[in-house]
């Protein structure tokens, strides 16, 4: 195993240990409510980046996958009493299938046309949920989660720990994709799809794999959400804010490596959480917007790219 991988593995172990220990060390539940949202966005940004960053296919449909995970999890729990880990697994599988279906239908188009097609997915799924009374329709659906297990002091802490695990697995998956043959192929697709195709890179197959992995991560990010809010309704579950954040966070952090979305999500989601309970007015939207513009203007390749360039790393 290479040195970088060992450092990464050690980092994962430390983060997981903190995820399980923090609920016992930090007594105030607020930090776990806020931390959950930040970690949720780390997962969403990481999931989006597998297709949007590595392959360069800008996907506006992140909220569609997220919402599908939210509703599948809520449905499986309320109808069959499935435990949360199985709900997450089921959401990831359905997200992957949805990703392949979306990819198969839309990957033949590129650029802005692909982006519009993925946006359509959100509208279609939201409309479907609106019209299924078994999912609460427009009125929404109350989800009273189970008691947390004994190893967690409360529901908010349990949700936080679960989200730490999902985020860590997602980041590990994204890193594996990045350094594996899939990542190399996707980078070739992003650089020039025609050239990659001519060089024997199986572009469609790789893009479908990216769609499936991206969809699985995005849907898994949504699976614990019903237990976090105890209530799901289509407008929030399929909110375009999720889709916009999914794009903005990797752009701020950098789309070329797994680190970029993590940095971007930690930064932007934390700023959003802090702004909500400090500035807390119309100004917080303006403030977040200003941060976004500043990063796009002064660090167009993202923060990780800024440091990468300083180190003289090659840019593909």
């Amino acid at each position: 195993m290479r040195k970088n991988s060992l450092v990464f593995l050690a980092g994962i172990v430390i983060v997981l240990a903190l995820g399980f220990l923090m609920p016992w060390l930090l007594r105030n539940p607020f930090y776990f409510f806020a931390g959950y949202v930040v970690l949720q966005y780390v997962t969403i940004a990481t999931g989006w980046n597998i297709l949007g960053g590595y392959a360069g296919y800008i996907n506006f449909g992140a909220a569609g996958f997220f919402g599908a995970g939210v509703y599948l999890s809520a449905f499986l729990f309320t109808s069959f009493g499935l435990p949360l880990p199985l709900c997450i697994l089921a959401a990831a599988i359905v997200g992957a299938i949805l990703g392949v279906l979306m990819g198969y239908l839309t990957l033949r188009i590129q650029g802005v046309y692909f982006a519009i097609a993925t946006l359509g997915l959100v509208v279609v799924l939201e409309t479907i949920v609106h019209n299924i009374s078994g999912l609460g329709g427009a009125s929404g659906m109350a989800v009273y989660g189970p008691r947390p297990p004994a190893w967690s002091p409360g529901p908010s802490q349990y949700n936080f720990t679960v989200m730490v695990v999902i985020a860590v697995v997602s980041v590990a998956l994204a890193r594996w994709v990045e350094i594996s043959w899939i990542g190399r192929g996707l980078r070739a697709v992003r650089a020039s799809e025609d050239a990659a195709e001519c060089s024997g890179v199986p572009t469609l197959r790789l893009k479908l794999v990216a769609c499936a992995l991206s969809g699985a991560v995005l849907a898994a990010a949504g699976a614990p959400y019903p237990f976090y809010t105890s209530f799901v309704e289509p407008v929030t579950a399929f909110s375009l804010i999720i889709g916009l954040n999914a794009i903005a966070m990797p752009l701020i952090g950098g789309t070329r490596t797994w680190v970029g979305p993590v940095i971007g999500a930690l930064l932007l989601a934390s700023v959003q959480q802090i702004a909500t309970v400090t500035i807390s007015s119309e100004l917080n939207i303006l403030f977040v917007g200003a941060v976004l513009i500043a990063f796009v203007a002064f660090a167009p390749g993202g923060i990780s790219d800024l440091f990468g360039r300083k180190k003289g790393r090659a840019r593909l």
Partner: protein
Amino acid sequence: MKTRRQFHKLMAVTAAGLAAPAILGSKVFAQDKPIRVGASVSLTGPLASTKNGQIGYELWRDDVNAAGGLLGRKVELVIYDDQSSAANVPAIYSKLVDVDACDVLFSPYGANLSAPVMPFIKQRDLFMIGMFGLAGNDVAKHDKFFHSGPWGPNSGRDWARGFFDLAKAQGVKKIAIINADLEFSKNAAKGGADVAKEYGMEVVFNQSYPPNTSDFSSMIRNINAGDPEAIFIASYPADSTAIIRGVKEIGISDKVKLFGGAMIGPQYGALLGSLGPELNGLVNSHTFVPEPTMQTPAIKSFFDRYTPIAVKQGVDPLGFYIPPFYYVAGQLAAAAITGSKSVDPAKMAAFLHANAVDTIVGKIAFTEIGDWKERRVLMVQLRGIKGNDLEQFRNPGHQVILDPPSLKTGELAAPYNKARAS
């Protein structure tokens, strides 16, 4: 400063002085700390039109503090913007409780934003006043939750019953129902269909439409084909405008006696001003109108102070629908605190369950799940509107109360076409 030692002494004294309030205040002077009231308000996002409710909170706080506070303690509001998103609500209320140490909570606006906070307050056994969440406590059944809105018991089904009572009194046998495919309007339509069935009315047309619908011409033609005698509409502001304009363009059968019911929009200044005379004849739900049976010195004083603030802030200058009930929320909290002489949730809740409270909108008594014992949703008919001047709506006679009977200020003008032409 002569020596370093003197400087250190000065620093130590300064630090002790700064730390003293924090050290002593928590125990010895706890009674002097303000009573903190926490809430989230939708200052941004799709529900930002409800942010004028915050003026109600602030007027209540100012009044209470001017009168010496509650239990000798000042009242302090802690308000955060939920951005109209249910996703922000859990963290905000945890902040209000776990960091800001609020003694009393007001819920976010409406059922969808309030729902995420219900398990939280039930689990932590907290005291909360609900803000306009229809049937907001029907699932959680938390015994320390009280509605400030006048929906009444069984509100999920019955809140718009007044419209059907009027239809029944007019001998209506056939009714049409249309609704936006969104939470509030969908509930209203479902409840309406149930009540219509209970009253033996035939629902000749029942259709929901996507929220972004802007052309209702085909739907109005289909309604006319069904030949109904009343049309119950559950819509949101943009569709309310489109429906009213569609009816003006296409026309409606002379047999229709009642038109309206649960249209969101004609309660607000923006729509009253833009539609003006086109609203004549509409029978619609409301929570407060300046009719003689509802006017009291207290509510008049409230609006005398509300209007200049609203104009300055650029929000609804009339503010009939929401702001008085935000003030009422404060009055309910104040009554619970002073009545129980405590900020203990159990004692405050016990007081409100046992006692009716006088507020600027009248006396309120609660059921065991915090609904008003008596439904007091108004059905008003808009009449005599000339031009688009908003000031006319401050005068009686333009929003005549038809239901409930205890507040009635006039008889239904029917059929709708005749009332519309007047």
